[in-house]
């Protein structure tokens, strides 16, 4: 391969991995926390007390801070297909592009509009309308995840298409929409997002209970929500993970063989693929593939024992309020779901190399025709920007989480009640402009 193309390919892959990974850190928490906030608000709306309303505002604000940074990183993701991977849109655009289009318009468009209404409509919309807004935001966020995974599922396991010339044409839309590689991943991701939110809530609450801040009732309840959510979410995540793992043997046999270190099987598959697709290396990088899977499984094992123990402990009032070693452990455990999710993605994506569309288009044939200098500049810019955003987001989350529910900006009543004339058109009250 031309050294320039090879460098651009490496840089473009690195940029995609870093921006997708960076974006996913936000997505995981956003998707889970939205669900929790919607449930909390449902309770608050159905005759809950003051505590319920405060829970919604506090966790809602952390959700919004995280969402805001997540959305800007997502924007870069959407444009990256065309920027760096025009070969992909050229060959697979008929299928991949369609699900991305539906995602943006049917899911994300609705989500954004209603999120604006939810954030700024506090004290302005009726309480039922406001509740409906957060549920629409949550459900469209799930729809977004589904459509994105339809795209990703197609890349991992292309179904429902026909090859015409050098392009793929949509043949069976139902097969694309019910691709097991998309559906199983969707279940895995949604449960994993709830798990992340559970760990996050439990950790923030544990911090306040450990510090013995005055908000013990508030955080006692939050801790229970987080811990009681984590364990079932982990079980569901693991079930979908197991189903995906067992489907690998038929869908992506090389990945499966590399994961299980079956050297003879790898050699057999390599020979078979080379005979079918021409000479080349068809074995994914072992360090990333197997390493990703092992890190994910270790994190899962740790979380399994930890959440099971927590699930039992949370039934005891004394443990919730006084078991300080557990509080410290809950705080320390926050990175675990993130580590598991990112390494899971590394396993999924590194493990399908050298393909970008499995068995149809190699990653090296999908990269845009760019100069290495342009790609280097873009990689440096986006990496710096994303690193900064991840750091700012973490700092703000910690800051707001530590501050507690006493002074939450979200949902504060900013109406100028003291100034009843404030809403009229000011043009009449002001002097005629001078020139």
């Amino acid at each position, binding site marked *: 391969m031309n050294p320039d193309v090879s460098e651009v390919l490496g840089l473009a892959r690195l940029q995609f991995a870093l921006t997708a990974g960076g974006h996913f850190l936000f997505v995981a928490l956003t998707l889970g926390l939205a669900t929790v906030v919607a449930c909390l608000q449902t309770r608050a709306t159905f005759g809950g007390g003051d505590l319920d309303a405060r829970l919604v505002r506090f966790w809602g604000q952390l959700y919004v*801070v995280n969402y*805001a*940074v997540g959305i*800007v*990183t997502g*924007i*870069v993701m*959407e*444009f990256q297909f*065309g*920027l760096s*991977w*025009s070969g992909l*849109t*050229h060959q697979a*655009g*008929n*299928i*991949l*592009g*369609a*699900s*991305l*289009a*539906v995602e*943006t*318009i*049917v899911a*994300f*468009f609705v989500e*954004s*509009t209603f999120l*604006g*209404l939810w*954030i*700024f409509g506090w004290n*302005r919309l009726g309480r039922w309308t406001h509740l409906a807004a957060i549920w629409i935001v949550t459900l469209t966020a799930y729809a977004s995840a589904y459509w994105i995974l339809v795209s990703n599922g197609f890349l991992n396991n292309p179904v429902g298409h026909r090859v*015409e010339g050098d*392009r793929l044409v*949509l043949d069976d839309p139902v097969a694309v929409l019910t691709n097991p590689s998309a559906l199983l991943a969707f279940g895995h991701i949604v449960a994993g997002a709830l798990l992340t939110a559970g760990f996050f809530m439990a950790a923030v609450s544990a911090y306040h209970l450990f510090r013995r801040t005055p908000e013990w009732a508030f955080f006692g309840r939050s801790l229970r929500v987080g811990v009681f959510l984590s364990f079932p979410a982990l079980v569901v995540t693991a079930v979908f993970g197991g189903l995906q793992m067992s489907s690998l043997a038929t869908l992506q046999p090389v990945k499966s063989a590399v994961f299980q270190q079956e050297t003879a099987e790898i050699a057999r598959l390599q020979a078979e693929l080379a005979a079918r697709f021409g000479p080349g290396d068809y074995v994914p990088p072992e360090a990333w593939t197997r390493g990703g899977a092992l890190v994910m499984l270790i994190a899962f094992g740790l979380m399994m024992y930890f959440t099971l123990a927590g699930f039992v402990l949370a039934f005891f009032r004394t443990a919730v309020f006084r078991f300080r070693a557990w509080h410290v452990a809950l705080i320390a455990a926050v990175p675990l779901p993130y580590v598991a999710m990112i390494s899971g993605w590394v396993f999924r994506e590194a493990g399908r190399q050298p393909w970008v569309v499995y068995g149809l288009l190699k990653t090296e044939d999908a990269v*845009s025709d*760019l100069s290495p200098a*342009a790609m280097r500049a873009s990689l440096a*810019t*986006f990496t710096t*920007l994303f690193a900064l*955003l991840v750091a700012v987001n973490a700092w*703000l989350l910690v800051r*707001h989480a530590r501050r507690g529910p006493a*002074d939450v*900006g979200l949902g*504060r009543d*900013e*109406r*100028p009640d003291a100034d009843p004339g*404030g*809403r009229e058109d*000011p043009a009449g009250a*002001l002097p005629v402009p001078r*020139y």
Partner: protein
Amino acid sequence: METLAIALLGFYAAGYFVLAGADVGTGMVAPYLGRTDRERRLVIASFAPFLLGNEVWLVATAGLLVGCFPVLEGELLSGQFAVIVPLLVGWVVRDSGLWLRGRVTGRAGRAWRAGCDGAVVCGSWTVALAWGWLLAGVLGGTPERPASGAVALVTAAAVAALFAAHGLGFAAVRLTGLPYERARRLVGRTRAVHSFALTAVLMAAVPVAAGVALPLARSAADHATLVLLVPALLVVTPPLVAVQVWSWYVFRHRVTGPSYL
């Protein structure tokens, strides 16, 4: 089907330029409209509830482009790499500034908000100038590489000026108090609504002109895709527009106080 797809693309792109153009433009002139921290917060409150709903029109436009015109999307974006990257960076910087501005209070708050204001203004200008630059390339008949030379500079400056004028008109329709008076002074004798309507028409014309210059009809996706995608999108578009109209109705009053941002 291709014609309908082009119409949809034009509709969403025009929606972005008219709606988000207003908040980008207001962000560009924010330091003129708001001289103090509190005034600038009021300026931001004028478009805060619409911010997410506005920019999502561009996300939808990009989605339509990749869904209905995938080959063109790849060629245009990779060809205009040098323009799209600053556009995205400006967008990200601006949005981060807006979302994070109000989130730090206390001692560090003043410097933080000043930094965020800087991000909003620089980001907004970058976005507007990048659109102008992109337009220069598309209208100049070279969508495969960024425009250069005096034409690119003039087009970028003109488009940025249009964004700023659109933002000023929007500010004059939405604001109160001193920021309102400042906007009023520049908008001049014309009624603010008229000025805003005029710039809105011009803003809508920008993507339409670009669409005419692009080879849309012959780069459409395969028929099997369009025949499913386009009707589905046509069906969902009216309710989407209705929800946005409702959102504008809910927040229709002039702003007198700060919002969450």
